[in-house]
């Protein structure tokens, strides 16, 4: 059941990210909702859930959005999910602040990682400066939305919880 719920969350995040969020773009930058869901589950359940869900989310992103090589987002998001999961014990004091900081950082790193790999594999016509600029904008935008995504996911995770895998 937990897997089904997480799958539904992932699918919803993909739909919203591709259909709804483009209308909310500011200067061409929109929040990275899929990465925020990875951050949300990773902060709720730890690095194990973070890396598994991150891999699944990245793979789904690569398969369903048709952008670039399959495996790029999977690699980036699984690493993001693992690292965010590892930071979970240090953010229990101020969970909301942690969500904002990690949400922004993770989104920026995800965009930077995906952009860098795209440049390495010559998959896009973008430049390094453009990747950095987009990463910064996405990070800031996602940081604003992070509490609104991570808190509900935390509640959902607790509702369908298994033993958290923490450090």
């Amino acid at each position, binding site marked *: 059941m937990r897997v089904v719920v997480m799958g539904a969350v992932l699918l919803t995040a*993909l739909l919203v990210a591709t259909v*709804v969020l483009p209308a909310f773009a500011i200067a061409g930058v929109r929040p990275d909702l899929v990465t925020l869901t990875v951050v949300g589950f990773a902060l709720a359940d730890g690095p194990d859930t973070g*890396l*598994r869900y991150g891999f699944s989310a990245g793979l789904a992103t690569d*398969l*369903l959005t048709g952008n670039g090589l399959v*495996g790029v987002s999977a690699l980036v998001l699984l690493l993001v999910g693992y690292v965010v999961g590892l930071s979970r014990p240090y953010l229990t004091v101020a969970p909301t602040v942690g969500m904002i900081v990690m949400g922004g950082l993770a989104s920026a790193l995800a965009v930077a990682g995906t952009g860098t790999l795209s440049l390495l594999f010559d998959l896009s016509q973008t430049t390094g400066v453009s990747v950095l600029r987009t990463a910064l904008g996405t990070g800031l935008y996602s940081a604003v939305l992070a509490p609104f995504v991570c808190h509900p996911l935390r509640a959902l995770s607790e509702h369908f919880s298994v033993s958290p895998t923490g450090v």
Partner: protein
Amino acid sequence: MSDRRRSRTVLAVLVLVSLLLLTLDYRQGDGGAVAILQRGALAVFAPVQEGLASVVRPIGGFFSSIGELGSLREQNAALEADLQELRQRQVSLADLERENQELRGLLQMRERFGFTTTGARVIARPPGAFEWSVLIDIGAEHGVEPGMPVISAEGLVGKLTEVAPRNSRVQLLSSPAAGYAVRVAETGVEGLLRGQGSRPFQLEVLDPEAEIEPGQEIVTRAFQGTTIPDGIPIGEVQDATDPAAQGTRFLSVRPYVDFTKLNLVQVVLDSPLQPTELPSEQLVPDPDPPAPPALPPEQQGGATAPQ
């Protein structure tokens, strides 16, 4: 500790899987298994995206427009100003079109009779309700004189009664003080036309036995001592004559000219004053003069031969 090791193991496996997928897709390109899988997933997911988009698009547009509110306000203000200007131009355009039609009508009237005219604009009406004259914006400086007829595109308007250097007064045909010699255009039946203010003209038919039908046109008739040219349209007969009626008959004539909407008129400059008598110095000698009358016999002797 085992959890950490397990996590690292899973991490390593998934990283390897990602790199494998990446390598496979990169090497095989669009024809590879990974690309086929990608296309299949897209084929399933795309209709779902489309369905959601059709629902969400109007809402997204609403939020987008909030962001553009500032520029929308400026655009709106600019468009309002453009619209106001266009409305004013439309009003002016309608006025120009009307004036254009009037001028064309005036030109046609002038060409029809071959008059030499000068154009004028009605600038004022007397304040009273029983004054039947108008002021026009030309006067003696423009070559006009009292008595000159004034016409519009529809027909005779009246004649100049007072002329100042730059303005003139036109006594309208509808004035009760105005009287004009007229005739029925189709039959030549003569009459006298008088204005009756806002009511139709009154036509006094001189020949009691003449037959006049409703709808027949009434035009001006030149006669001695007048400056009004012959044949200018005035109006049309509204009632029929009654041959059984005896004495002078009076008929109503509907004017062609709407005296309440006069704007552009023309003053006829070359309408000559019809003479009342033939000037003797211009008489042509009779080539076959009649013989003088014979004198009585008692006057013939004394007058013919001296004794």
